């Protein structure tokens, strides 16, 4: 057995900012086991099993295409509407799943956390990874449809498609970062739990590129354009659509700002989360 130094001290307050990455690395197997557990547990005793990964985005996309594209006439021009909405939906689902699941970390796991110590950050990390796999599966569906359209010459790619992995990481960082901040607060104020579930839906409408395009907001709700401008999710979604579908515009500066904001939000989230894990058992 490797000889490790396990000596430690327990004191009231840890430093404001301790990442404790070494400890997290020691528990890396646990993260993967959590991911595995989530997958097995979710689709045990369902008939369609992992097919549900496809069913949900397909139906949501159909509804969006019909309601917003055909009836509302808010869809993009020169781009297959179905693909446009589907790319937005699977990207958004990734963000919102990471965010919502992370935000209820303490409440969902209070029995486990009350009995044994392990770095609590393993749970949000396993959530991000689980959802990444789910996203990957849904991306396959998107790719199949995309290739069909591409072969017909209906979609065009841009060089910015190379940004794809980077955008994905940013989405994860943002979802986890926001989730960590909320998770710490919900241990005390349960109201937040309901607020974020509703809030994340609202945010979907306020993020241009998912349902409404930036231009339609500018045209129809000029007073609310600033919300889109400060929304760190907007440049990510926009770059994603630019790369795959040549829809929208690629704006480098907002994207970089958004990346900076994401990192800051994640760091703040980890700091708050680490502080909370030491005392939440007393308040939950």
């Amino acid at each position, binding site marked *: 057995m490797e000889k490790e130094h396990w000596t*430690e001290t327990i*004191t009231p307050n840890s430093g404001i900012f301790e990442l404790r990455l070494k400890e997290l690395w*020691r528990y890396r197997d646990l993260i993967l*086991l959590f991911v595995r557990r989530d997958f097995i547990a979710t689709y045990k005793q369902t008939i369609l099993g992992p097919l549900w990964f496809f069913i949900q985005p397909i139906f949501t996309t159909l509804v969006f295409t019909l309601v917003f594209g055909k009836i509302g006439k808010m869809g993009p021009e020169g781009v297959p509407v179905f693909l446009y909405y589907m790319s937005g939906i699977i990207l958004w689902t990734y963000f919102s799943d990471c965010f919502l699941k992370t935000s209820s970390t303490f409440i969902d796991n209070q029995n486990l956390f009350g009995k*044994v110590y392990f770095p609590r950050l393993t749970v949000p990390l396993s959530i991000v990874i689980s959802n990444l796999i789910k996203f990957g599966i849904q991306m396959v569906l998107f790719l199949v449809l995309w290739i069909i359209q591409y072969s017909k010459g209906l979609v065009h790619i841009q060089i910015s498609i190379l940004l794809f992995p980077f955008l994905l990481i940013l989405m994860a960082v943002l979802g986890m970062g926001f989730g960590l901040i909320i998770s710490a607060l919900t241990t005390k104020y349960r109201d937040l739990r309901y607020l974020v579930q509703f809030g994340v839906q609202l945010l979907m409408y306020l993020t241009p590129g998912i349902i409404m395009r930036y231009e339609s907001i500018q045209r129809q709700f000029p007073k609310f354009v600033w919300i889109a401008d400060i929304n760190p999710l907007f440049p990510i979604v926009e770059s994603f659509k630019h790369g795959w579908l040549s829809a929208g515009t690629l704006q480098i500066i907002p994207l970089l700002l958004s990346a900076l904001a994401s990192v800051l939000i994640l760091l703040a989230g980890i700091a708050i989360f680490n502080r909370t894990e030491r005392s939440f*058992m007393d308040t939950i």
Partner: protein
Amino acid sequence: MSKSGEFAIQVENLSKMYRLGSISSGTISQDLNIFWHHLRGKENPYLRIGEKNDRTAEGGSDYVWALKDLSFNVKKGDILGVIGSNGAGKSTLLKILSKITAPTSGKITIDGRIASLLEVGTGFHPELTGRENIFLNGAILGMSKVEIKRKLDSIVEFSGCVRYIDTPVKRYSSGMSVRLGFAVAAFLDPEIMVVDEVLAVGDADFQKKCLDRMSELSHAEGRTILFVSHNISAIRALCNNAIVLDRGTLAYNGNVTDSIEYYLNMNRSSGIINPDGDELKLKQVVIGNQDKETNALEYGDTLVVSLHFYSEKEWDKPYFWCGIKSRFGSLIGANGLLDGIKAKKVSGDFTVTFKFPNLKLLPQDYTVSFGSRASDGHTFLMTSMEIGSFSFVTPVQELGMNGPLAEMLAKESAPVLTPYEIWINDNLLATFEPHKR
């Protein structure tokens, strides 16, 4: 302060404060107040008003110290027992040592890899198979995948669930999940183990296996164990030193025999007062044997229970009863309502004494209850309640019990000992006469 070597755990001035009542309304304003003090570099204004944790007395504030200035050291290779009544701070100490919650002040230094067992099978998922759960539970307890793989066969064998190992845990009986959980824990490799009363589950055979495994870990491999339990006999059997907690403070720290003696005597003669509303005021309870006040009785002793009362009114021919209970329920009683025995007149200060001569009980813990009714047999003068406790401490070997599981089963068996004979096909096989050597 010696940094290396001698001590596995050093606890210095450890304190933990809790807020009582529900945490909802008013907390935002208090939080803001704490934050405002914090900003100005002052300490939490609510900390100072904490008071000693006395569950029975009404306190002046909503804050209470579950632990207050607790200091002790645990030597390497020691098995330290932690005893105390409910609310003494045992669980809080466990939680802090397990890093589930942080202390309010003070410091703990731990030298070595520590694992705590507040529960077995933590994190078991019902949908996963036994094998998958071994990996999950092992990882939660801090083992790596490689480590678990290496020990998998031993774990499965120890649990005795080989046949079910690829079946989802939701199909297991509760006993089987406990066995599986303990098996994983038993093969952790920590230098220090913090163990709660997890041994109270499972059948006798398995309990013995667990206790043996813990002794083995400590004696053969030099592990340090901190064992928290209500079960005095288990503490006596396993530990060499013990600390006694009383309302969040350290009451006693010494070898296991002295600590248990201290703990058993702690409640004695402190004057347990019955609730308001009873006509008879119970001022003092004295429990002892034929010679002296004590809560540790030997086999064959006379149990003496003396109760000192005060009554403003005079009562003619009241009934008294006194009952002894073991953890299995009522055991013996002196019941005036059954026997028709009444006192004459009592008033002012008076004493009621019960004597139970020549008690032949197994080494277990017992409680004493008392109650009283007026001469009509209905009106309560004192509502029946538990007034004290005592233990029999004679080791089973001295009673002539030499069965392989005698030590373990003595805690789990009907406690009254009587002589008996066993006949097989009309031939006398043996007679058993419990005796004190």
